[in-house]
């Protein structure tokens, strides 16, 4: 004997104009928002699922793709509101583009490609060994980021608004060019305290590169492949992750306190210091947001932790 299945009817209205955009009948009760987005996409091909925001309330929060129709507070005729998020681009694409730029741009300055410095310096190399070291560190850093984007990170969101790629690339590429110009300049002045300063900076830099990588791996392991689950990160056997005891977002801590501060000390270059400062401000904003989400989502979130700097911030 088959149990009668109650099908749902779904109507989708424009959140701003309240126009009826789409009517779907005979929708399975266990259909997900993601599946409804695909159905909506069929009748409106210009709005692919990634740019659809579906909500219960015109001004409310977006429903998640995983939400199931029958578990939502709707009757058998469900009314949803649609908002166009605008052209979207995948996170992976954005990351790859914004990180490849600095890698290539820095090397152009390092090799003193024509039209940057005076013609007599074209294709020459700096006589200071710290400049070669800096190039290796900078390049290593961005290669690491590219590889992590391809193989390590598990993204919650597939996409972001298209205009972000222009904003982000301007930031990363612009700063990379600005820093690289001075570090590779024929009139570059090496660090005042010479070898000691450079060695210390390199140690800090490498330590924090490993630290940052360890955190990325730990975060990846919290989330099974293809899933978007969120769990509280905890220290693992890797000592570099013990910082989780004191900080919510140690990946940012390592990035700022270590890698970029180290690079600043290594190159003794004011533009690098500016980049570190701006990055720090941005990462603090992100860390505070993440910390707040953790607190909201998990009742038992460890109270000792600060967002980015132990006890301070």
């Amino acid at each position, binding site marked *: 004997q088959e149990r009668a299945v109650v099908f749902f009817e779904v109507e989708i209205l424009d959140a701003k104009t309240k126009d009826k955009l789409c009517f779907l009948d005979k929708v399975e009760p266990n259909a997900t928002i993601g599946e409804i987005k695909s159905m909506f996409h069929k009748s409106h091909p210009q709005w692919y699922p990634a740019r659809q925001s579906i909500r219960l309330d015109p001004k409310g929060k977006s429903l998640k793709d995983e939400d199931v129709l029958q578990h939502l507070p709707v009757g058998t005729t469900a009314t949803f509101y649609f908002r166009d998020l605008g052209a979207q681009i995948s996170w992976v694409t954005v990351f790859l583009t914004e990180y490849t730029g600095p890698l290539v741009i820095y090397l152009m300055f390092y090799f003193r490609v024509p039209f940057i410095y005076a013609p007599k310096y074209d294709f020459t190399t700096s006589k200071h060994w710290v400049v070669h070291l800096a190039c290796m560190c900078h390049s290593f850093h961005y290669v690491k980021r590219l590889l992590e984007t391809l193989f390590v990170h598990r993204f919650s969101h597939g996409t972001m608004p298209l205009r972000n790629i222009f904003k982000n690339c301007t930031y990363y590429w612009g700063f990379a060019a600005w820093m690289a110009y001075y*570090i590779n300049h024929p009139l570059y002045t090496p660090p005042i305290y010479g070898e000691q300063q450079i060695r210390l900076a390199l140690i800090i830099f490498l330590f924090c590169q490993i630290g940052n990588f360890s955190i990325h791996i730990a975060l990846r392991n919290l989330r099974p492949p293809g899933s978007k689950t969120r769990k509280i990160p905890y220290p693992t056997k890797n000592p570099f992750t013990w910082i989780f005891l004191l900080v919510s977002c140690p990946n940012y801590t390592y990035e700022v306190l270590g890698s970029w501060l180290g690079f600043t000390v290594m190159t003794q270059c004011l533009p690098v210091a500016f980049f570190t400062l701006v990055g720090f401000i941005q990462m603090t904003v992100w860390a505070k947001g993440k910390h707040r989400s953790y607190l909201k989502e998990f009742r038992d979130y460890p109270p000792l932790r600060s967002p980015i700097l132990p006890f301070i911030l």
Partner: protein
Amino acid sequence: MSAAAPGTSKAAHSDVAPKKKKGPGALATAYLVIYNVVMTAGWLVIAVGLVRAYLARGSYHGLYYSIEKPLKFFQTGAILEILHCAVGIVPSSVVLTGFQVMSRVFLTWAVTHSVREVQSEDSVLLFVTAWTVTEIIRYSFYTFSLLNHLPYLIKWARYTFFIVLYPMGVTGELLTIYAALPYVQKTGLYSVTLPNKYNFSFDYYTFLILIMISYIPLFPQLYFHMIRQRKKVLGHVEDYSKVE
């Protein structure tokens, strides 16, 4: 710099100021009334100073010197407005207000004050006059709005005078910066060259040129925004005026 625009600096504020009224508390409102009254008075002092100096000398030349101090004082004082937004007693964007105030402050100190040779230029008088008229209208607009008693004349002035004052101010500002360029280049004012131990350089001359270029995209945006605001706020005026 584009804050030369009468009324531009609080374009967002202006739509909200007459309508809100649940915003700042009684103490904040009292403070803001005092602030706006003081600023209105200050710019009136500058206006009077300009007129008196003109009548005394009989020429437009070199009037800057007669109002240099109150100009610096009251224009710099406008930095408080950024604080008002940050603290929340004024419902405007901190970033937008900051940008507009700092561009005025930049022109006052980093160009006119710093490059003595431009102080006797007529272009300085051009933007000072534009700023003075704008600010008198703007601050009295806020004062009356806060007291919930805004005369239509003031509202009309705020949304109409900018049509002439904004381009006038921008012209004065651009000509002044342009006049400053040769002196900046010659003296290397505010510039840092390589080599130095911070591995940093800054060319104030190029910076000023970039500032001038930035007026090209910014000025039309702000100007047309004000024109749109004018239609919204004063819209019905056009209908009446068409009746013969």
